[in-house]
């Protein structure tokens, strides 16, 4: 004889009712929208009237509204207990409602009936009447159907069962489980499901996701952000699943979570960044001690392949945007050309090789803070090759000329740039005492062009509209505009190998309120 699971449920007055008590018990689990359950309500009422003073009576319903309707429809003498959490239904492992259990006074299972089989219920009534030495229930058995199959218990509903199982196992995982048949190739399956960016994914098994979750102290069900375009809840768990697929390690998770928070702000506008035909993509820059701790590459080949941390952190963010946010090429992601940064683009700044304030300090964080900054960039890294300049003013001038092509050489005040200055160029700039402000000023100086040169013309219609220029004075047309509306639109970081005089630049998208504003978020310390 097996022991039935103990439970504690609330009755209709909110009083706690516990099982087992000190008597034999009848336990019936049912739900209101099941016709068979409604058929047995009068039977249960007659059982209660006949045996209610000698056995404990537990009738539990699976939905709150349903319990109210059962009360209105049948007005039973017993209280309908609240199993809307389905914990008892799950613990009793039922597939079907109604399920009726008879236990002895020790809580041991004596009998279990599933659905309604008149003969079985009638036999139970006789047995109870005999054993309790009392009258049998008053009931016109012949008026009842011989057999009714019952309905599926809510506790085995595929949308609910996994959560109940996880709760019962005390697992932090709540995501839907997907079983891949042994004959299927799991890698092909994930491609077929549309989870992939085009490259193979690491299967996010529960074990791998649990391991990934060790990378944060945050609750797996915490909603980190609501992610456009589909406004999906980006929980820590969902982000961890995508991080596993990207090939990330648990120690990278904090960076990924912070990046998700950053891109889901109104300022960053991930909806527009993904949707634009221009083809923008997040570019992540990591600062602080975490760079070394998780083995990011900030030196040779920093913007290229070869570093697991750089590559998979950037990829995890993109996969999360794809799978949680729902931004997919051809859907709401509508880039004309796309760009390879849409696979991944994440790199750390080489702060130790940087004679100036690193990016996160410029943006108001402490030097020891770990910070991720996200930019919306449409192209890059484009190289600025200057192996010749030996003075800071020459080199900063070169950097400026190299940035003229951002958007289009005739497009001034149009966008921002993220300039990645290589160490050899840093040495040239610092030798003449150049600060970041000096670099920015020099870039603005060498890119200044009179408006007259920026007016639409036979070579290109891009730039200042002819109609606007027509109403301007000659003096106004000679006013010089630098490339960038503000010096603050020139973001500067240091990274790359010690050898080589090649700096790089990422070109922005629609900058500011009109499009995207770069956002920094502190990374959780674990």
């Amino acid at each position: 004889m097996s022991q039935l699971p103990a439970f504690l449920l609330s009755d209709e007055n909110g009083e706690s009712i516990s099982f087992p008590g000190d008597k034999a018990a009848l336990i019936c689990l049912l739900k209101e929208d099941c016709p068979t359950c409604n058929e047995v309500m009068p039977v249960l009422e007659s059982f209660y009237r006949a045996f209610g003073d000698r056995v404990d009576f537990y009738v539990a319903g699976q939905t709150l509204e349903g319990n109210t309707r059962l009360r209105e429809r049948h007005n039973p003498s017993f209280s309908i207990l609240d199993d809307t959490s389905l914990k008892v239904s799950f613990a009793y492992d039922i597939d079907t409602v109604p399920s009726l259990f008879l236990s002895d006074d020790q809580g041991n299972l004596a009998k279990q009936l599933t659905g309604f089989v008149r003969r079985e219920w009638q036999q139970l009534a006789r047995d109870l009447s005999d054993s309790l030495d009392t009258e049998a229930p008053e009931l016109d058995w012949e008026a009842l159907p011989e057999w009714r199959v019952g309905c599926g218990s809510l506790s085995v509903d595929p949308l609910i069962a996994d959560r109940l199982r996880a709760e019962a196992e005390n697992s932090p995982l709540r995501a839907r489980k997907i079983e891949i048949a042994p004959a299927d190739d799991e890698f092909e399956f994930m491609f077929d499901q549309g989870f992939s960016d085009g490259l193979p994914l690491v299967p996010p098994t529960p074990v791998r996701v649990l391991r990934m979750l060790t990378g944060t102290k945050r609750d797996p069900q915490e909603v980190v952000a609501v992610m456009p375009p589909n406004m999906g809840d980006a929980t820590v768990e969902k982000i961890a699943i995508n991080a596993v697929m990207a090939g990330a390690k648990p120690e990278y998770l904090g960076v990924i979570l912070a990046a998700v928070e950053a891109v889901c702000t109104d300022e960053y506008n991930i909806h527009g960044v993904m949707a634009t035909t221009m083809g923008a993509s997040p570019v992540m820059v990591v600062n602080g001690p975490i760079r070394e701790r998780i083995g990011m590459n900030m030196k040779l080949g920093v913007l290229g392949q070869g570093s697991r941390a750089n590559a998979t952190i950037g990829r995890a963010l993109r996969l999360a945007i794809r799978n949680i946010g729902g931004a997919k090429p051809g859907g709401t992601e509508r880039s004309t050309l796309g760009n390879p940064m849409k696979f991944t683009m994440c790199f750390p700044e080489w702060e130790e090789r940087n004679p100036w304030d690193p990016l996160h300090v410029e943006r108001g964080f402490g030097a020891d803070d770990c910070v991720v900054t996200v930019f919306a960039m449409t192209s890059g890294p484009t190289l600025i090759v200057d192996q010749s300049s030996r003075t800071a003013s020459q080199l900063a001038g070169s950097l400026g000329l190299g940035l003229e092509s951002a958007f289009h050489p005739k497009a001034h005040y149009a966008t921002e740039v993220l300039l990645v200055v290589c160490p050899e160029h840093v040495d040239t700039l610092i030798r003449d005492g150049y600060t970041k402000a000096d670099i920015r000023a020099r870039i603005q100086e060498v890119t200044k062009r009179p408006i007259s040169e920026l007016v639409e013309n036979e070579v290109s219609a891009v730039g200042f509209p002819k109609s606007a220029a027509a109403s301007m004075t000659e003096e106004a047309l000679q006013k010089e505009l630098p490339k960038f509306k503000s010096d603050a639109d020139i973001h500067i970081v240091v990274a790359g190998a010690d050898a080589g005089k090649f700096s790089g630049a990422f070109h922005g998208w629609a900058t500011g309120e009109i499009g995207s504003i770069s956002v920094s978020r502190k990374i959780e310390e674990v």
Partner: protein
Amino acid sequence: MTTILDPTNEAEPVARQITPRSGVITGRVALLDISKPRGNVLLDRLETLLSERLEGITVNRYSKPTFTKPAPDALRREIQENNDFIIEGLAD
């Protein structure tokens, strides 16, 4: 058997019904410019043509603050409450 966890938001998309098409354009017609370059050129021309060809319609012009973001709720509401038809100029 390999079990993996669903990486998506698991949300069921909301099914929205298309307003029944009457086959006739009458009443108030909204033209929404998303503020992309030259979108207004297209919509100006469209307004002229609609006004020439359809008698008794009223054309109301609207524009989004920026093409990079969804239209603000207040603008959507205003368009919905004051118009029978809408044409949006995507300009791409």
